[in-house]
């Protein structure tokens, strides 16, 4: 039963397998992304309260939901790195940190865009989601900068694995304490995201399609960057040399 798990430890095996999956994943991503973006951004009927601004939410909700997956992902990858010393887990974790930082940033950016219209402000400290997303971004940047500061790649792998595990626990504590802080500080609540009922199902179907699309995008980017990482780190291995020579 564990064979497949230990096979994952072999970068070559992953490289070949992911090569087979990639076309299908990319195709699915393109389909979902096109449907979601074209329908969501161009054809979706305006929200009864928010007007056309609600279309930003299609992208925002999908990206925000996906960006919550990064710390758990890095937690798992970090545990695998520390327990089983699997090189592949670290390659995934390295790129997950960078992608996670981008996703968090895009979440904040699209959220600000929406907020600038709906709340009349680009930034609102009283909304706990904004604040905890900001600190998730900071924690991810901390992991990235630790990786770039450590030169020895083996030590960097373990150090970042440990920091990701600590960071994942921390991000949960931060989320709840910020929520607590807000419920006590919040004077007025500008947030009403409950747009589901009067709008009919289109809004949620479009959002759902976009969530699937963004998750596929995450998977594809992660696989692509991990494959890159494999080629770079295994450049002295024979199979990589063969591969490069064949490509020429």
């Amino acid at each position, binding site marked *: 039963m564990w064979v497949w798990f230990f096979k994952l430890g072999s970068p070559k095996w992953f490289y070949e397998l992911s090569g087979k999956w990639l076309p299908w994943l990319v195709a699915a991503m393109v389909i979902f992304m096109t449907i979601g973006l074209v329908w969501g951004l161009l054809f979706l009927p305006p929200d009864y309260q928010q007007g056309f601004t609600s279309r930003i939410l299609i992208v925002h909700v999908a990206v925000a939901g996906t960006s919550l997956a990064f710390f758990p992902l890095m937690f798992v990858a970090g545990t695998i790195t520390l327990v089983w010393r699997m090189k592949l887990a670290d390659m995934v974790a390295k790129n997950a940190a960078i992608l996670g930082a981008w996703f968090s940033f895009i979440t904040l950016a699209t959220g600000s865009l929406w907020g600038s219209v709906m709340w009349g402000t680009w930034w609102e400290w009283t909304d706990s989601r904004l604040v905890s997303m900001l600190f998730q971004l900071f924690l991810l940047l901390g992991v990235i900068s*630790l990786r770039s500061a*450590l030169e020895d790649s083996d030590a960097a792998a373990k*150090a970042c694995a*440990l*920091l990701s595990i*600590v960071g994942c626990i921390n991000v949960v504590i931060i989320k709840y304490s*910020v929520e607590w802080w807000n419920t006590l500080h919040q004077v007025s609540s500008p947030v009403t995201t409950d747009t589901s009922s009067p709008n009919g199902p289109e809004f949620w179907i479009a959002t759902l399609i976009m969530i699937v699309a963004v998750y596929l995008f995450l998977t594809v980017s992660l696989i692509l960057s991990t494959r890159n990482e494999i080629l770079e780190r295994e450049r002295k291995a024979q199979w990589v040399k063969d591969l490069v020579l064949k490509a020429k």
Partner: protein
Amino acid sequence: MTGKQTTTSAAFLATLKRDLLIAFKKKNDIVNPFMFFIIVVSLFPIGISPESDRLTEIAAGVIWISVLLASMLSMDNLYRSDFEDGSLEQLLLSPHPLFFLVLAKNISHWLVSGLPVVLVSPLLAYMLALPEEAYGTLFLSLLLGTPIMSLVGSIAVALTVGLGSRGLILAVITLPMSVPVLIFGTLAVQSTLNSQSPLGYLSLMLVMLSVSVSLAPLASAAALRISVN
């Protein structure tokens, strides 16, 4: 230790004593972060406003944030000199659980850097026009919060101990993690000012402290084993 077997508690006490001794011999490492703390706090009234009403509002936050910044400075030296002179390796090689040795180092660090800050906090609270009834809460919140900072910060210090030029990476890693402590520390003071009981927040900080005492040294120990090869 002439071939005699030492108990873990003896090793714990020996580490604690040794670290305190070193700290008192190198007074600069204690005094400078402490001075930094006091200077930062006294810059706020100059930068923001000397009016006592305004100061009352920000006093707890100012003191708490200055504590966090000062702890970054003092933390830097937690394992570095031991790493440089090789005694950290000896610590890792010792037969006793690293958990307790790391805990001893953290406690000694808190005694020389955290405790002075806690003790001086009522004076600074007075200077920042915090009403008298909140002194006790601020004091208690710092008493519970500063050891959490030492314990959690120790993980990041242990991870970066091998770096030649560490720069600000320690702060970049640790400061975001201190958000919960900052929130509950300042909320406790705020609620006293609103004449509510701060006990809820203080007991939450106590929970965080107990969790940190039992888990953070584990992570620090693992981090030290990663950094020292």
